């Protein structure tokens, strides 16, 4: 077996066997699944405790307007003085009391909710919505407008976005889905680069502070050791990624089955709720039909291919830089200071992605997806919206070229850095190392 293979094998096996890898492998999907599961759990639990709200309506406008919902029951207390109802709230007969004073149309209404506990946001919103609607209707009637007409006039505009290409093909796009997907992919690349790049840096620094480095590089070239580590860790990253996808699938299926058996009625409702929350309401208008359309509108093949290309190239570029930084480190506190220059472009890329996602074809977006230090993240934001193929290719070529150049530079720094101990380093000095034979 050749030497770089041996190094890759060791780097891979020692990391995959670590307990922290196992923990991350299970924790990742649990966190991802939690995004899906928690809203459903909340929906399931909150229906168990209904809030009892006493209503003292001295205006008599809203008495039949408050409908019981899953979360709350309204109990009308006509003619009861509000003070005695407040006492009932104190003793726990009711969770809260709504008091509406006598109201006239031209006077702003001043309703009050009395409660021992914090009033949930939804209750507050519900009550004010009902009251506003009723007062509006009353005002319209006072001006001689029939509320029936008003509700008939209300319209929902369903704005379709169609992307055309030169050949005249039209395709419907779903901006919110692309938005979510773009940010998600960018975050994923960012997290993987920071996390696994950091592992490369720590690994290099460990070999240096352990002083095993000189033993190893009397057997292999420093370049082989560096690349072996970078590649070994990248395989760990890919393993983790694949395991996450598999486990997330298992959790998802398992949980859906559990919900399906224990709460059959909750399944459809819970799913819709979860999707509403995680996808910013995209489902609220036209649910079933548009899910299929959305799935068809996304080119998963392109997205996965681009993700792999940009993630791997981006990781390789940054990992070699992290390796060079690791070689400069004498102790762990130094690493923060030296790694700053390479975390800054990553942070710029992730912050800018929130602008790029709003306008993925702007010149800022195009530039950022070409500059090799930001392109792995910025390009992934744009991919779900559709990027001209030439831009993707050019960006990938630039990224690959920069990777080769940076590896050459990083290897020079690494080679000298790993054998430097107890010396204060300046950037000027590190620059000189590039010229060493």
């Amino acid at each position, binding site marked *: *077996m050749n*030497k770089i293979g*041996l*190094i890759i094998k*060791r780097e891979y096996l*020692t990391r995959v066997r670590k307990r922290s890898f196992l923990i991350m492998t299970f924790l990742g999907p649990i966190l991802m699944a939690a995004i899906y599961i928690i809203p459903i759990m909340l929906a399931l639990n909150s229906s168990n405790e209904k809030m009892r709200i006493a209503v003292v309506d001295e205006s008599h406008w809203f008495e039949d307007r408050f409908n019981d919902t899953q979360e709350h029951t309204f109990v009308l207390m006509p003619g009861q003085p509000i003070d005695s109802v407040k006492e009932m709230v104190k003793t726990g007969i009711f969770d809260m009391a709504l008091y509406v004073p006598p109201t006239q149309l031209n006077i702003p209404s001043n309703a009050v909710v009395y409660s021992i506990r914090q009033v949930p946001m939804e209750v507050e919103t519900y009550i004010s919505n009902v009251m506003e609607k009723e007062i509006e209707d009353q005002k319209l009637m006072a001006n001689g407008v029939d509320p029936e007409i008003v509700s008939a006039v209300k319209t929902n505009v369903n704005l379709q976005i169609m992307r055309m290409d030169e050949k005249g093909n039209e395709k419907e796009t779903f901006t919110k889905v692309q938005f979510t997907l773009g940010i998600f992919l960018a975050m994923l690349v960012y997290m993987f680069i920071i996390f696994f790049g950091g592992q490369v840096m720590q690994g290099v620094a*460990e*070999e240096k502070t*352990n*002083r*095993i480095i*000189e*033993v*190893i*590089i*009397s*057997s*292999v070239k*420093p370049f082989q050791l560096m690349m072996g580590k970078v590649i070994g860790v990248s395989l760990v990253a890919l393993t983790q990624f694949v395991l996450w996808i598999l486990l997330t699938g298992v959790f998802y299926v398992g949980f859906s089955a559990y919900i399906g058996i224990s709460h059959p009625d909750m399944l459809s409702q819970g799913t819709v709720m979860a999707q509403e929350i995680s996808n910013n309401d995209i489902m609220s208008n036209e649910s079933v039909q548009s899910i299929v359309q959305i799935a068809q509108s996304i080119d998963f093949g392109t997205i996965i291919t681009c993700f792999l290309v940009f993630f791997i190239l981006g990781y390789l570029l940054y990992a070699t830089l992290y390796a060079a930084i690791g070689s400069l480190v004498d102790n762990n506190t130094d690493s923060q200071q030296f790694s700053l220059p390479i975390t800054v472009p990553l942070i710029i890329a992730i912050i800018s992605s929130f602008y790029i996602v709003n306008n993925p074809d702007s010149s800022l977006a195009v530039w950022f997806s070409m500059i090799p230090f930001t392109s792995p993240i910025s390009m992934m934001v744009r991919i779900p919206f559709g990027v001209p193929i030439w831009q993707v290719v050019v960006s990938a070529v630039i990224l690959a070229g920069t990777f080769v150049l940076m590896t050459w530079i990083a290897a020079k720094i690494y080679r000298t850095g790993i*054998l430097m*101990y107890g010396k204060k380093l300046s950037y000027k*000095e590190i620059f*000189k190392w590039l010229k*060493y*034979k």
Partner: protein
Amino acid sequence: MTKITIHEVTKKYADHTALDRMCIDIPEHCIYGLLGPNGAGKTTLIRILNQITAPDSGQVLIDGEALCQKHITHIGYLPEERGLYKKMKVGEQAIYLAELKGIKKAEAQKRLKEWFDKFEISGWWDKKVEELSKGMQQKVQFITTVIHEPDILIFDEPFSGFDPINANLLKEAILNLRDKGATILLSTHNMASVEELCDSITLINNGKSILQGRVNDIKRQHDTHQRELIVRCDDFNKVMSVADTYNNIKVEHTDLPDETKLTLFSESPNELIGRLLEIGQLVSFKEVLPSMNDIFIQEVQSQNQAS
């Protein structure tokens, strides 16, 4: 026959010259000492031999052939700054290091078992390195250095961190390796081990070789013709009256009241001995050759003053 030829090797770093036209010939099957004060350039030279760095000019030949990638498996190197992966198991790590030197896994396993038995550390095979004492780690490191049976071995301060018993074990192992035909380069500040082990040495200072040769020859060259005599005589004045006729003599009392120690710096002590025999009894007579320690200090200081 010459095993390693270092010819006019120069290595410059940004602010200083680590090696200045260094020339050393290291013969086969010997233990060759590489001496010199800290920062003299020893480590740089060793790193060049290991192809960790390359010289700016000059060349290194092994068996008359220019140093190249294939020689890596012919060299075993125990650096001064050495360590192991702390979280890795001892046996696994030793096999990994052996494999990096081009040994097949099964062969590595077999040889390691033998060495582990020899060093009485077989029980440590499945322990993590961080559980081992420093001396134990040193043993493992020594084994990984020699496991691929290289014909050139480079030891940088091999005895540091060893207790006297283990140091002795190591010393025997080194001599044994030489007898089996290895050429050994020993870099150390421990002059006692140089006298004990080394056949020849080179003394480096400021990147230059300032003294080279066989240990015995060097000692002869630095012979100050110092002879030490102890004479037994009740009357100290009699001894003094003899000694006073020489100007290259030093007289000292010993722990015993009737014995006197005389140190003579002369190639012909016979006359003095004859006269001392007339007044008392000669207890001992010996030739004092300078120690490598003295030679080291003397040479380095005189060179530093000259420059």
